[in-house]
């Protein structure tokens, strides 16, 4: 596999996998040259996306917090994990290392890991050590670092160049020389790197700080089966959650309530919202019908309310006169231009959470001239704006039958104007027949079947949209103008 980047006008190889490197591909090589090294079809080329990679590394660091709370990202492809104190929890450093490797393998990544007293040493050992899993205690640090090449010390290219000129290839050669001569010949940076690796200088890392999840919970004094207590608690938690959301200017798109039951598995109820909201009244109105269906079992010990999925929701000006909940005809956000959108969002949330998300949908035009595929229905809870295709100008019926109904037709010529029609048990005399409008199938998908559409009027004045399937010669009724 190769990752290709565009440099100037040409496409060059930015990264390659191990097999490609063995075959002779190098970074910076033009893509066409690299492709020539393999037989066609053997290499897969993807665009190089450093930003996406950085984001993915961040997510990986968040996932790796299960091993230690202090993790730093070292671009472009390593994580520095501080496990001081954590090995006791995992019953030993080697067991922790094994878990880390297994964990990464389980999500599909190959990781090289090493444990050492300093970050710099661990960095070097993970990359350049001959064996895979290395745990180096404090005493053995010098010997472990010695056989590594000098590249392992994270030196700048100039220093590496000058070291290569002199013929120093391994760290042990460097350690053999005196510090003063090293400083005078190669500069302070080399000494600093050596000290960092050996533990004589302290290296600081910047651990990743993840934002706190939105969560509010309450523990009861003992298991309870009283509905009023649970209802009151959930309402109060909703109020607290909305305060947390307001403090960070976010609105919830998904709200989950977790009930820990005694002597039974926990129950979760979830509500999805079409627009971010931090209105506690609205969240309560969505959770309440679901709450009534929760099986309390032998009692609830604690309730936790979380908002796992949130989106930005800026503060907005409320009206000067606050809404009075007692009055029925009041429009709550009268002066606010976004108000209509808010109340509509609340209506859609209520409908979608009670009827089911796939029963409340919005339609979008699709890029197809086949009538039944010219639109797509999508649930309102996942709005994804799609590019709008211009609609066709030809006459279309007001309603389309879900499945085209076969019809028997009496016509002057096999593909000509229609005189009589028989469908769904009715006989119709045709007063007018306008057409044909030919709609071909989507041949690029491998489909066959051309349809000739006609608009016909029966003796009652009703207009039908029928078509003739040219390949089979069968007639169908597809739509009506009602």
């Amino acid at each position: 596999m190769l990752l290709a980047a565009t440099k100037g006008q040409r496409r060059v190889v930015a990264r390659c996998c191990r097999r490609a490197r063995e075959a002779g591909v190098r970074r910076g090589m033009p893509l066409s040259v690299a492709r020539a090294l393999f037989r066609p079809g053997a290499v897969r080329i993807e665009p190089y996306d450093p930003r996406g990679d950085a984001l993915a590394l961040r997510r990986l660091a968040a996932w790796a917090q299960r091993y230690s709370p202090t993790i730093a990202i070292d671009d472009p492809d390593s994580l520095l994990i501080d496990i001081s104190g954590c090995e006791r929890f995992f019953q030993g450093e080697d067991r922790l290392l094994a878990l880390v490797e297994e964990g990464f393998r389980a999500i599909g990544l190959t990781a090289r890991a090493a444990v050492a007293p300093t970050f710099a040493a661990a960095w070097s050992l993970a990359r350049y050590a001959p064996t895979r899993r290395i745990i180096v205690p404090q005493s053995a640090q010098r010997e472990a670092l010695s056989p590594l090449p000098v590249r392992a010390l994270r030196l700048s290219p100039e220093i590496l160049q000058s070291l290569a000129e002199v013929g120093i290839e391994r760290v042990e050669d460097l350690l053999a020389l005196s510090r003063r001569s090293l400083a005078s010949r190669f500069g302070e940076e080399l000494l600093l790197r050596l000290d960092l690796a050996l533990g004589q200088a302290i290296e600081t890392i910047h651990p990743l700080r993840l934002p706190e999840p939105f969560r509010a919970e309450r523990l009861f004094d003992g298991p309870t089966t009283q509905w009023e207590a649970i209802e009151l608690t959930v309402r109060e938690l909703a109020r607290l959650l909305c305060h947390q959301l307001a403090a960070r200017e976010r609105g919830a798109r998904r709200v989950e309530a977790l009930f820990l039951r005694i002597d039974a598995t926990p129950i979760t109820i979830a509500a999805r919202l079409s627009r971010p909201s931090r209105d506690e009244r609205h969240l309560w109105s969505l959770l309440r019908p679901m709450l009534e269906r929760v099986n309390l079992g032998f009692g609830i010990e604690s309730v936790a309310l979380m908002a796992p999925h949130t989106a930005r929701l800026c503060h907005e000006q409320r009206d000067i006169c606050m809404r009075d909940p007692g009055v029925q005809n009041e429009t709550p956000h009268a002066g606010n231009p976004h108000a209509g959108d808010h109340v509509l969002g609340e209506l859609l949330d209520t409908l979608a959470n009670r009827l089911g998300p796939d029963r409340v949908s919005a339609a979008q035009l699709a890029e197809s001239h086949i009538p039944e595929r010219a639109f797509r229905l999508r649930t309102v809870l996942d709005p994804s704006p799609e590019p709008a295709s211009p609609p066709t100008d030809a006459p279309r019926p007001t309603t389309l039958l879900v499945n085209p109904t076969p019809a028997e037709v009496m016509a002057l010529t096999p593909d000509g104007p229609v005189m009589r029609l028989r469908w769904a048990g009715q006989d119709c005399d045709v007063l007018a027949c306008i057409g044909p409008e030919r709609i071909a199938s989507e041949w690029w998908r491998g489909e066959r079947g051309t349809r000739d559409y006609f608009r016909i009027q029966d003796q009652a004045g009703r207009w039908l949209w029928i078509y003739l399937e040219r390949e089979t010669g069968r007639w169908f009724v597809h739509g009506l103008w009602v």
Partner: protein
Amino acid sequence: MRHGAQIHPTGNPPRTLQDLRAAIDAITDNTAQALAAPPVLTGWGLLDAAMPTGGLARGAVHEWFAETGERPSSGGSPTPLAVLIHLARLAAPGADLSPAVVWIGRRCWPYPPLLARLGAGSLLHRSVFIDARDHAERIWAIDIALRCPGVAAVVGDAAGLSMAESRKLQLAAAGGRALGLIVKPVREIGEISAANTRWLVRSEPSQTGEPGWIVELLRCKGVRPMSEGVRRITVRWRHETGDVRLVPDTLDRPAEAARPPIRIRHAV
């Protein structure tokens, strides 16, 4: 004028017909609705003038029946979608995302690409399609959609609506600003309901290439039954714009006698 003295709340007897009308309106609460939101003008000539609010009142429920003169094709009578699309577009002008138009019940769903091409503001972006599992859920959905201030028009399938439910829907509509258009099968045409107006749409043969219908206002709350010339009009559907336009009377008028009249049986 002693009767007048008893009716009028402030005690002054009404002097003129205007005062009397105002007194009656204060009791029946018609003007409150008319002042709340402008009515939807259908654009169908004399019908608009004949209705007390000058058009279809918002914040009220209007019933629609459709009949084609033939046995219906597959279970249930058709819905007058062309007319309803036209009215929904008039009720929700503008190109923003809200106010929205809500279509409840699969029988009331129009063909979506048609909504994209109508007039200046496309209805497609503002339409929400709702499919309910049973009658109770459908009525509940119509109810809460009517109450929402962000909804301009609700087109719902209300087959099997009882009198109590229709009263509840009318109250829900009065609490909001939406134009409520509910569709019922033609076999329920005799049942009493609390809707503001009641309409019947029948298909009509036309000589031009466009579908035509006869739209008839059967009943309007607060208005005496009108003469046939006023309450029954012929309209045509324009393919390009999706308008339903009034047909000038001088053009084709097929023989009325050939069609059997509809018999309305009132439930006792």
